[in-house]
């Protein structure tokens, strides 16, 4: 009798634990300001919503390749101007609204409109018009051939939004993805649950919780205590050896698109002088910085492009660490020793710690850097939106985003007609070899002008429970795509 009872109890316990393994709690450093990826630049928005809540016509997979999503297939006309997308049928939004070509027309039209608040408006600028020959076909005609168009349509910024919910998507996101939004506890967590009406294969997980933990110490503690199942961008690389030594965890170091830069306000003195910007580039030892700030995880960069992207040119030797040269350039530009600049530092550890190291390097060439820590919302508002800053440390996680240097207005205020001309050529290039050549030229131009000091490519230091399968090891775009994540049996 007792034995039977024990067996039953064991079976019940096993069942209970097996049942518990269809939820996931995942740690993130930054909390998204809102949840509409078509209306904000913060990567954290995509890190919650991409592929999980919202989908676009196409998507970017873990390898950085374009894959079908709401478009099952597509054809491109030989002149590169007409994209014909075959849409999936029977797709509904989480609120029951149907998805068809009208949604595509609405979403692309909204993103490209004059009053659009899309952070990547440039992606949609080449679109001349969108037509719907039938509800399951979308024909997008471009003004000119655009090399990166399809890749761009895989970004979170090109997500399909339902006209009915678009006004409230910031706080109550409604998409077509396999998970729907359930709850947002500000400052703490966002919860998603499986959407039973999903058009594709149902995900293995039933609930997903994103928790926001900025402090590296708290992140380490939460992981070690098992409060989190995964921290895909773990903020404390120095504690990695400790985590790695623990068989409960998997540690994977991959790559991201994160171009970590000392962004300079090129419209402000003294950074309007290219000699000063170059001097700062000479003043900082990138390898040592990576060692000190990221415990050696990360790769130096010499332009706004990461080594894993097509057409990468190694320009890390353009400004070798050379404080004497930096001082000479500063003197030439008339910047006196003792000049004070302010560096605003957002919360991530790469910025807060990086700022301290950079300040020490600048001190050696006679520039006093005043460090001002700012909260994330404050950074987005003052630095990013209003361009009110001297310098800041930030990682740009959008893939292949050379376009930001060609924009009329962007927070670091780089304006170069030669660069813009090059960029237009690149966008219009149809021949892949010509494209790669131009990508190289763009990088060289940036290294030459050094609008910002290019520091390093952020590594993706991922830590998760050893029983988890299907986590992304690299971040070709900012995302925590958990649609293929499951627990090992």
């Amino acid at each position, binding site marked *: 009798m007792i034995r039977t009872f024990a067996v039953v109890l064991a079976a019940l316990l096993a069942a209970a634990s097996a049942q518990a393994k269809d939820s996931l709690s995942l740690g993130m450093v930054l909390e998204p300001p809102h949840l509409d990826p078509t209306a904000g630049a913060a990567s954290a928005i995509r890190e919650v919503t991409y592929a999980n809540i919202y989908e676009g016509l196409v998507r970017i997979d873990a390898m950085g390749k374009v894959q079908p999503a709401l478009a099952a297939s597509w054809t491109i006309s030989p002149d590169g101007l007409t994209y014909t997308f075959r849409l999936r049928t029977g797709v509904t939004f989480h609120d029951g609204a149907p998805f068809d070509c009208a949604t595509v027309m609405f979403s692309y039209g909204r993103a490209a409109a004059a009053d659009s608040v899309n952070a990547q408006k440039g992606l949609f600028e080449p679109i001349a018009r969108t037509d719907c020959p039938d509800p399951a076909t979308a024909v997008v005609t471009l003004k000119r051939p655009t090399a990166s168009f399809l890749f761009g349509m895989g970004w979170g910024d090109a997500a399909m939004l339902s006209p009915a919910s678009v006004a409230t998507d910031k706080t109550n996101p409604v998409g077509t993805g396999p998970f729907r939004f359930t709850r947002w506890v500000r400052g703490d967590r966002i919860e998603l649950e499986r959407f039973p009406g999903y058009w594709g294969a149902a995900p293995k997980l039933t609930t997903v919780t994103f928790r926001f933990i900025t402090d590296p110490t708290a992140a380490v503690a939460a992981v070690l205590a098992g409060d989190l199942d995964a921290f895909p961008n773990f903020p404390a690389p120095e504690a990695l050896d400790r985590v790695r030594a623990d068989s409960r965890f998997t540690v994977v170091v991959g790559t991201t698109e994160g171009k970590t830069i000392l962004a300079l306000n090129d419209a402000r003195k003294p950074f309007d002088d290219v000699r000063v910007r170059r001097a700062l580039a000479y003043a900082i030892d990138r390898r040592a910085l990576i060692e*000190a700030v990221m415990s050696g995880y990360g790769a130096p960069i010499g332009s706004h492009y990461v080594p894993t992207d097509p057409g990468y040119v190694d320009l890390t030797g353009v400004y070798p660490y050379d404080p004497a040269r930096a001082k000479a350039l500063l003197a030439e530009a008339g910047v006196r020793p003792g000049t004070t600049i302010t560096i605003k530092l957002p919360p991530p550890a790469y910025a807060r710690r990086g700022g301290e190291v950079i300040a*020490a390097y600048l001190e050696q060439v006679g520039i006093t850097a005043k460090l001002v820590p700012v909260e994330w919302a404050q950074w987005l508002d003052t630095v990013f939106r209003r361009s009110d800053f001297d310098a800041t440390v930030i990682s740009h996680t959008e893939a292949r985003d050379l376009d930001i240097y060609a924009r009329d207005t962007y927070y670091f205020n780089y304006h170069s007609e030669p660069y813009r001309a090059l960029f237009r050529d690149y966008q219009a290039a149809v021949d892949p070899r010509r494209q790669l050549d131009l990508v190289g030229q763009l990088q060289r131009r940036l290294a030459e002008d050094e609008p910002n000091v290019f520091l390093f490519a952020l590594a993706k230091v991922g830590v998760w429970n050893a029983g988890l399968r299907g986590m992304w090891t690299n971040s070709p775009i900012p995302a925590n795509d958990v649609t293929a994540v499951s627990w090992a049996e």
Partner: protein
Amino acid sequence: MKQGRLNLVLGGAITALLVGMALASLVWTPYPPTHIDIVHRLAAPSAAHWLGTDPFGRDVLSMIMAGARSSLSVALIAVAVGAGIGIPLGALAAAGGEWVDQAVMRASDLAFAFPALLTAVMIAALAGPGEANAMLAIGIFNIPVFARVTRGAALSVRERDYITAARAVGRSETAVMLRHVLPNISAMLLVQVTIQFALAIVADAGLAYVGLGTQPPDPSWGRMLNDAQTFVFHAPLLAVFPGLAITLAVLGLNLLGDGLRDRLDPRGR
């Protein structure tokens, strides 16, 4: 008595060491405290770096010394603010009659209702992080402490015969307070100063720890402790040294306070 003397000597010595270190850091530290040397990061204690180096290769001893300067100056200003405003308020409450007394004491009750560090966090959060605001924040929560101690001591002294005598010969309330009451409670206030000084050092470290005190790159003990946390598996000593510095500072000041009390308190004699 013997115990008191030991306290006084030991506390005095530790405090002197600390003050000496802080003063020395103004003109000399083994290395500049903000100087980074990444090649030699996380070095163990050695002849070149007595207390080792931190993740950026900064010399820990130099940072502890510069941190002593920062901690002591924050504590000094904070206690000066607290005593400078609190003592006159307390004296006023003691001498000013029922209404003034009630007003001052209820206000200080209100201030007391908030935990001290929370008050400091609130002030620092409102005024922004930084050394000056840490001084102000800690100073403000010191005001009611000094006001209460002063009032209590002054009221008990005012009942003594020599005060009655002074009043009998026609001295004004102000003169009685300044010439007779305050000098007679100064020993007690001095002891309170050392206690508050120790608490201010802990508060300063606490504020710096949560990022509201002294800002980088200026070294501070509290932030050194915070920075050391995630490195605790690699380099546990990084957390030990600033922790030890805070402990020693508080211990030294408390011993000094105890010693002074035993020495100065007429009841102990």
